[in-house]
């Protein structure tokens, strides 16, 4: 991921924080990683370096399978300046079978065919702008 300064008209991409660097490295390789607290077992996805349940910072990296169902979504027609060239695009929230929820683009499906509760899978994708993201795609 490239690092850019805040501005009104460019995409804001935060730098990979040291503690979560592995997430961004694995994402480039096609793997989606979460963190799991070694003390209490709570699974964090997207990953967190610290567990706010038991206050431990001793975390394991675990791979996310990414299967789940779409809870809700929107089709963005009027987009932020840096995204107007790809509008309309779909942002969805999915409930993963593994427990956590995730917000991501829903791709490979026409917006009008999207249904709440449809099965989705979280996969990695190198997008048109060169940024590798996790994306929700229809499954089954």
């Amino acid at each position, binding site marked *: 991921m490239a690092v850019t300064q805040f501005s009104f008209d460019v995409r804001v991409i935060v730098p990979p924080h040291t503690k979560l660097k592995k997430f961004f490295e694995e994402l480039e390789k096609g793997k989606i990683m979460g963190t799991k607290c070694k003390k209490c077992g709570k699974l964090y996805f997207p990953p967190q370096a610290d567990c706010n349940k038991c206050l431990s910072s001793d975390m394991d990296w675990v791979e996310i399978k990414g299967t789940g169902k779409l809870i*809700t979504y929107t089709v963005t027609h009027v987009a932020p300046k840096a995204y107007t060239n790809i509008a309309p695009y779909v942002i969805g929230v999915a409930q993963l079978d593994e427990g956590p929820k995730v917000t991501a683009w829903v791709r490979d499906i026409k917006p009008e065919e999207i249904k709440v509760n449809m099965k989705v899978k979280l996969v990695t994708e190198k997008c048109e702008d060169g940024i590798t993201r996790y994306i929700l795609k229809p499954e089954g």
Partner: protein
Amino acid sequence: MRRVAVVGVGMTKFGVLADKSLREMAFEAFKEALEDANLAPKDIESVYTAINADHFSSQVSPGASVMEYLGLNPKPNIRIEAACASSSAAIRLAWLDVASGLHDIALALGVEKMNEAGRTTAEIIQFMGTGGDITWENHYGPTFPGFYAIFAINHMHKYGTTKEQLAMVAVKNHYYGAMNPKAHFQREITLEQALKSPMISYPLQLYDCCPISDGAACAILASEDVAKKISDTPIWITGLGLGTSSVALHNREDYATIPGTVEAAKQAYKMARVEPRDVDVACVHDCFTIAEIMAYEDLGFCKKGEGGKLIEEKQTYIGGKIPVNVDGGLKAKGHPTGATGAAMTYEIVKQLRGEAGKRQVPNAEIGLTHNVGAHGTYVCVHIYRR
């Protein structure tokens, strides 16, 4: 804690105020409030200036700049940020100053200049979108209409809420906006117009969204002793609640509710010792039409899932079960983010004094303001009584 009353309110007209700077708008609202309270600048002992984003005005620490322009240096001032709930948060802190006995008279002033020459809607939408989670959401190009559209789809799926019901909120708020000389939009719209308007973020269309506005509003708060001396119509602040919700959508349990609203409402009702059914008039945070429907439910004006029915039955018009946003709401009155909470207080104070003119709710005794920051990250609920 001492009893605290609002003794003066002021606000500018809301809209695209190209000829007014941030400080000039603040001054205009301040002057009206001083005249309303029959006070002089020297009487103000403490100030909370609410401004949502430095980026809109390009002035870092804009509260200090406003304070200087009002001529109130070297009195105490802190700039407050709680996103779109900033000036309700300022009122809460001004209340604490007075209730605690630290000061007798405090000013809470909110102001925002969102429109500047050369700034496009797409740029403002992009900047506002950074109110979502910057690490995990921002690179999907989220927008504020988008966040609330995500809530709307969930609400429609769970409770059968319809796009027509959403549009009915806009029709009501434009109906009342047409009666408010300070509203951004002072014209009525039809249901058909709303349903035919351009799609912004499905299922929300243009008329489901509040405008991008400039404006200022403020309230002067005083202790019981002072209030009774200087005012024949003190409006008492009897309940305050402050709740929060996660920034990231993935950390929410439910997308058809604002958890911070439920919490803030619980606190405010308990403190004021009232029930939702006791409220005579309410200003709720209708940044989008779905937000007003969720507010009906989260504030207890109806059961969860019945917000769509409440507007369909016109129960939130004057004469209905609970008149809501009879000033036009954010939808028609406008939403200069930092000023919105104080503008809600302005309306409730006018309503409880019986000074709201054509849009007066008859014999209103208890009023409520509900001000949401971002998509629920901060929520203030305040209860007022005459």
